[in-house]
């Protein structure tokens, strides 16, 4: 009995899920219980009961002919001695889910078609708030060369890895600058230094150099510059989701300052990689289903720590 009780602690959340596909699949059932009040097809309906905030957000999001969604998989190294880099596994599982055909019941983040020659691009058509077909383009950015940190950082690969993750950082920031409607990040927060697509800077004892990340905030500085550029061009994103740990604390104020019309999805606490993946999937599913306040919040509640800030602003009601 004691054994059963102790192991039952691990029933709801596994500690270190390599099996991200199973993790994502297991969360699909929860989508059946979500409040599906949606802006889809609602903007031509004068009797529509959706909130003004929800209607406005999706009207604005679908203003351009293409809805662009950008997902950044930050360098998700594991605590030593494990060499696992999670983001590669997470991306594998995520792609498997979003390209799934036919779509599972009540799921919208699926049925994407892969670009024939670009591993990072996916397309699908959905019905927009005015009942018309609308193209969705999804772009993925990954910074890790492989899922093995030892391989990525050994003497013969480190330069290639650093070049690769720098290019990934630039690509992600370009998506922010050109105002992709939805920008989402999973990975490490580097205690306020994220987004980070590169292997961690380490102390002599092999631990991550958090003092460096706290003082220099390399990814954050680049993100702020990208947000400022987007704002100057009048192209701020509709939604930015930083789904890594403690992002409410790290990014709410600076992001609000640089992008005051952008809705933010932020975490109140530390968040497991599998929950980040579920929240990523939930965010995209909600955007594509054009869910309003309650349903959207339900779809990103994995780990229970996510906050929606300004996604459906009250002043819009």
């Amino acid at each position: 009995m004691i054994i059963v009780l102790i192991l039952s602690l691990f029933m709801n959340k596994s500690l270190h899920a390599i099996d991200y596909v199973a993790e994502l699949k297991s969360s699909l059932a929860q989508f059946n219980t979500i409040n599906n009040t949606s802006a889809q097809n609602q903007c031509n309906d004068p009797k529509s009961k959706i909130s003004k905030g929800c209607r406005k957000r999706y009207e604005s999001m679908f203003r351009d002919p293409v809805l662009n969604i950008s997902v950044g998989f930050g360098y998700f190294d594991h605590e030593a001695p494990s060499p696992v880099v999670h983001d590669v596994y997470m991306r594998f599982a995520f792609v498997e889910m979003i390209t799934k055909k036919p779509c599972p019941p009540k799921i919208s983040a699926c049925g994407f078609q892969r670009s024939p020659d670009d591993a990072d691009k996916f397309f699908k058509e959905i019905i927009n708030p005015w009942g018309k077909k609308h193209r969705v383009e999804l772009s993925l950015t990954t910074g890790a060369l492989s899922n093995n940190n030892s391989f990525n950082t050994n003497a013969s690969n480190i330069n290639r890895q650093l070049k690769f993750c720098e290019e990934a950082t630039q690509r992600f920031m370009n998506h922010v600058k050109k105002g992709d409607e939805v920008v989402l990040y999973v990975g490490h927060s580097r205690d306020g230094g994220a987004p980070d697509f590169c292997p961690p800077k380490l102390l002599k004892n092999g631990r991550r150099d958090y003092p460096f990340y706290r003082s220099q905030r390399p990814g954050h500085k680049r993100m702020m510059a990208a947000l400022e550029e987007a704002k100057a061009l009048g192209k701020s994103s509709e939604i930015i989701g930083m789904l890594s740990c403690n992002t409410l604390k790290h990014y709410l104020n600076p992001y609000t300052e640089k992008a005051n019309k952008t809705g933010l999805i932020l975490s109140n606490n530390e968040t497991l990689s599998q929950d980040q993946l579920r929240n990523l999937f939930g965010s995209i599913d909600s955007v594509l289903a054009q869910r309003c306040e309650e349903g959207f919040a339900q779809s990103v509640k994995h780990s229970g720590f996510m906050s929606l800030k300004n996604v459906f602003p009250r002043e819009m009601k």
Partner: protein
Amino acid sequence: VKKIIIFLSFVSMSCFSEQVPEWVQEVRLSQQEGKEANADQELKLIKGINKTVIDNLNPESVYLHEAINSSSIIHDKNFVEPLLKVAQSEKVDLLQRSMAISVINQLSTADQLKLVLTTYSKICPFDKPVSAVLKLACLNIYDRFPSELKGRDLVILLDDESYELRIEVINKVSLLKDPKMKEQILGKSLGSSPYQLRLRSIDEIKKLPTDQRLNLKVMLEKCKSDSNDLVREACRKI
């Protein structure tokens, strides 16, 4: 009596799964981000459940999945033997077996590697339409067994439906000893999609000695007029 015991177990499990003690949550999180100052202490705490994990690293256990996941963070070499039994058991599904192998790969010592490889070679489904994540887990074991990597497996994976997996193949080419096989794989990937695969292939070709590069001359010439700008530019720079 049996029904009452089952009912009580169920009730107890429900209570526990909703009220996860703080230390368990802390240990989980210590694996993810920061908190490194306390991680060692927390891991000592969780090590107290090693026997429980070993007992459930058993093909018959209903908690096998949780036990495999737990073993992957506790890092105790005593898990290797029961994990091998799981990996070898036909009763366990392919995904769980490969997961077990993946954990053994992280835990095992040199003298256990041959046994792991024997088990592994029986269960890795490179030519089957199964999850790309599973194939990736299988592919990774060759980082520990470079001499056992078969070029023909990599050739098969270059045609896999998953672009991610095709790209991952290039990371393993440097492990191959046979220069002809290396050329074959790099040549094939230079003519394959996606463009990211071709770019990675060019990076690997740059590492080849001149005589081997010459064998890929036709492909490299063709690549100078590739449909993708980045690939074209990279080829012209070789």
